[in-house]
């Protein structure tokens, strides 16, 4: 009976084979976490964008320069850290442990750079008077949705830097498998992917056009 069940299971992945997706359970677990986390961020983004569109007096505190140039730089830094992470995973699968660890350290530096730039941006907004339920410009909910959304994302980046630190340290010393590096990479790419939605929805949708937008504005005569 059980022998027969096993035969069927191995015949086709859809019949309940041991590994229908041909990946390890850690990787599948991370993917399932990513899907549920993606829904959390979707709900927050939806709440932010809904409020953004529904409120004609939604604050637009991001001039092209410095805020948008600044957040574009953050985006490029985060994208570059995704590139170094994928290089780390490729090296890990080739068995080059120290090279993989080195690429992961570059990834962590990218993550730390992102957090530093983002904290600077936050402090700037707080100095301008943005609070969770009030701000000097318009719809009071701006602060709550902005800090909630970007704060949760920044927490994810910070957790990711710690996670990658543990993986780099352990993997460089001969612990764990290439799959563990790949799973941490999945998490990191996901954090990057979420920013690809937060950046346009939050920053690019709230650009302050007038008065003349700083240095870039003056250069281009706007």
């Amino acid at each position, binding site marked *: 009976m059980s022998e027969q069940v096993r035969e069927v299971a*191995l015949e086709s*992945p*859809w019949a309940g084979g*041991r*590994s*229908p*997706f*041909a*990946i*390890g359970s850690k990787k*599948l677990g991370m*993917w*399932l976490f990513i*899907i549920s986390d993606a*829904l959390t961020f*979707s*709900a927050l983004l*939806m709440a932010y*964008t*809904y*409020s953004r*569109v*529904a*409120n*004609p007096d939604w604050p637009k505190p991001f001039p*092209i320069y410095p805020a*948008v140039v600044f957040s*574009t730089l953050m985006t*490029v830094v985060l*994208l*570059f850290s*995704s*590139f170094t992470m*994928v*290089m780390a*995973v*490729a090296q*890990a*699968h*080739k068995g080059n442990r120290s090279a993989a660890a080195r690429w992961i350290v570059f990834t962590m530096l990218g993550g730390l750079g992102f957090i530093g730039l983002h904290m600077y941006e936050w402090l700037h907004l707080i100095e301008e008077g943005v609070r969770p339920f009030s701000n000097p410009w318009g719809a009071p909910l701006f602060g709550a949705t902005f800090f909630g959304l970007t704060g949760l994302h920044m927490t994810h980046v910070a957790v990711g830097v710690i996670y990658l630190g543990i993986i780099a340290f352990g993997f460089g010393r001969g612990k764990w*498998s*290439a*799959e563990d590096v*790949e799973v941490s*990479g*999945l998490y990191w*790419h*996901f954090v*990057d*992917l979420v920013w*690809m*939605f937060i*950046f*346009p*929805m939050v*920053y*690019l*949708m709230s*650009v302050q*056009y007038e008065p003349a937008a700083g240095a870039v504005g003056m250069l281009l005569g706007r």
Partner: protein
Amino acid sequence: MSGHSSHGSHEFAGTARQFAIVWGWLVALTLVEVYLAYIHLAVITTLLLLIGLSVIKAGLIMAYFMHLKFEKFSLVLALVPALLICIGLMTLIFPDSFRVLELGAR
């Protein structure tokens, strides 16, 4: 017979050159988004264009960096449609946000 080990290091598909090209595209699409914000179109137009471009970027990241292009298609089927349907259900209330604009408030 069932000596299948899940951590057998089968080759990680994709080359450094390929990853660099994908990264270049992601940066390029980001710059297009910034340009779209800079030229100041109507809110709804900007929103739709930005979401479209972001979905393309997300697809690139998932396909190449997260390796989904090189996994079994059954994994994609297990993960992506459910996510898209859930997000789609969330958007059902979204058109209500246009109501205030259509009422003429500025």
